[in-house]
């Protein structure tokens, strides 16, 4: 695996293998010294054109636990905020020795473009590109679902997963639809019709406008963050109406099967798409997702770097 650009590039075997590696690496986290020498001498560059503290920190932690050197470029206070282009910034990082560039960018397709343009030789890991994909988020979600509902092994065959919220603008939703269905889960998207992309009928999933109906028999529900800029752009009349129809409160959560779990990629709008009781309640795996994110990103870095020539 030279790059990780899109969850839809992963076969079922690729995905299971990544999750298995993540599970092995997770055991490191339980040790007193949380560090493996695996990527010593390798350099990982985090290139974040968009603010994302949690994803950036997660990749940093993952790289450091594998003993890689880490260079971090973030939008604020760097050449990026002075108008330096993606191409020039990537060339700069490669000149500093980066063998992997972890890219978060506001433009859809930025990671693919960086990987395929011929600008650089380094591997590219997509850490979120515009409204397109966020494959490591999907991997950590799959990992979390597998851990809690499939005893931490194999795929997700037969699971029913409901994804709720701003599907139109969500890279998390796109990557999860691709990856979870590849792993055998059935995915249902729930959103007001204004937040569902045109052409969604061609996606390998169901679409519903009715959350209560979709939750019947669901094994998991994933609540997406509603960005504040959507709240004033006529996608729905008011925050209240959105919360009533598409928010997850304890009454709704109570109607789910006993074993069903709740995920959220964060950061949450408590009281908007999810109430505090549910977010802090027993079904919520939101903190587990964060912990698993580090393990999954360790696995991705390991797979990408070990595919390179001269790999350890």
């Amino acid at each position, binding site marked *: 695996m030279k790059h990780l650009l899109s969850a839809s590039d992963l076969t079922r075997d690729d995905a299971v293998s990544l999750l298995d590696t993540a599970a092995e690496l997770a055991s490191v986290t339980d040790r007193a010294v949380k560090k493996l020498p695996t990527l010593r001498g390798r350099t990982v560059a985090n290139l974040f054109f968009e603010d994302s503290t949690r994803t950036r920190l997660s990749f940093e932690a993952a790289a450091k636990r594998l003993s890689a050197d880490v260079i971090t470029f973030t939008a604020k206070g760097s050449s990026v905020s002075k108008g330096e*282009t993606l191409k020039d910034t990537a060339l700069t990082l490669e000149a500093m020795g980066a063998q992997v560039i972890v890219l978060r960018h506001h433009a*859809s*397709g*930025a990671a693919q473009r960086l990987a395929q*343009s011929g600008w650089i030789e380094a591997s590219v890991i997509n850490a979120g590109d*515009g409204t397109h994909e966020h494959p490591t988020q999907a991997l950590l979600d799959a990992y979390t679902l597998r851990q809690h509902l499939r005893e931490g092994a194999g795929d997700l065959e037969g699971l029913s997963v409901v994804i709720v919220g701003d599907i139109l603008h969500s890279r998390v939703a796109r990557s999860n639809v691709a990856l979870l269905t590849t792993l055998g889960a059935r995915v249902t998207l729930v959103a007001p019709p204004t937040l569902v992309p*045109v052409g969604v009928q061609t*996606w390998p999933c169901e679409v519903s406008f009715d959350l209560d109906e979709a939750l019947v028999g669901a094994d998991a529900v994933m609540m997406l963050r509603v960005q504040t800029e959507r709240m004033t752009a006529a996608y729905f009349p008011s925050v209240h109406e959105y919360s009533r129809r598409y928010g997850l409160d304890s009454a709704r959560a109570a109607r789910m099967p006993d074993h069903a779990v709740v995920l959220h990629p964060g950061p949450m709008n408590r009281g908007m798409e999810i109430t505090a009781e549910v977010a802090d309640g027993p079904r919520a795996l939101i903190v587990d997702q964060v912990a698993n994110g580090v393990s999954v990103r360790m696995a991705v870095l390991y797979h990408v770097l070990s595919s390179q020539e001269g790999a350890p």
Partner: protein
Amino acid sequence: MSGLANEPAVDRAGEREIVLRDIRLMGDRQAVDIRFADGRIAAIGATAVAEADPQAQILDVAGRIGLPGLVDLHTHLREPGREDAETIETGCQAAALGGYTAVHAMANTQPVADTAGVVEQVWRRGREVGLCDVIPVGAVTIGLSGERLAELAAMAESAARVRVFSDDGICVSDPLLMRRALEYVKAFDGVIAQHAQEPRLTVEAQMNEGALSGELGLTGWPAVAEEAIIARDVLLAEHVRSRLHVCHLSTRGSVEVVRWAKARGIDVTAEVTPHHLMLTEELARSYDPLYKVNPPLRTVDDVHAVREGLADGTIDIVATDHAPHAHEDKDCEWGAGAFGMLGLQTAIGVVAATMVEPGHLTWADVAQRMSVVPARIGRVEGQGRPLAVGEPANMVIIDPDAPWLVSADQMASRSQNTPFVEHTLPASVWATFLRGRPTVLSGALV
């Protein structure tokens, strides 16, 4: 005065006559000889050689096809303002190599061509270059801001004789302003060339809206945003009895609206670009902004619809929307890339591939759609004329059996953003004549 409106005031005395032997005029099966003298067609047939000046230059055309010089109604020459992307000189070189003898230079320059001063400057520079007639398009509104009408009559009465007005790149979306513009240009037989794009339906739009835009996570540019404006504008044109030209129509629905309007007797004309005749949205999968254009590349079904529309006359003309962009404006991620593609040098090859080879158009039909009718829409004198004795000697000679593999370094433009790289086009331009003088011979600039 010679009577040729755009003829530069130069002394033509002593210029050699040119005899073209064995040329198939308008794609006729029968080849003839033709002679140019003093900027005009002096003879066709046996007398072309028999009565030629002994000093005449004689060229063997070997059965290639002669059409009236092509006329582009939609060209971005970027001068003044973005001479790093294109100049009037390099744009005219590309035009000549593409078989054009006249191009309409769009108004979205810096400064905007919204005054008589700017349009005259562009027109004069075109005459100095002398490779093809450069006919400025005037902006409809001051600074393309869509707020107040520019001084349209002043541009019409200037030396540049502007007849086509457009805010191209931006839609005249205010319905009242559009109505006023349509009415106002009637005084001097002008036409409003509308870039049909409902702005509120296309905020931050990046590509055609459909299943693919949803998959790629690129903001959609829905067909309805084009079709709704065309529908509104044809009804406005009918109401105020003016004429409307629709720029770069790109969807099946747009073809249907224009077809309906024409059946109703509305004075509307429409253009399609070569890239919308050949390419589809699938190219956006690469996220390479080389394929980013406005209006966006559409679906295969839309491509079929615009070909049908061009064949049956619903779409009147092919116009290039030649849009040069500096390297750095395309060598970037999709979202940061500029909209637009080169078109002048490849247009006839693309039309040959998409319309002539499949049998949708004859070469005589191509002459109508790429020379005669665009000249008529632009009210251009001395261009798009019949190939007959006494007419201006503006001509392109096309080799219909000379396939060429397009590469970016063949582009005469200062920019290289052709989307047809790696395409093999079936026909190429062998020669171009502007008022009897060759600008291109054997496929190279003279």
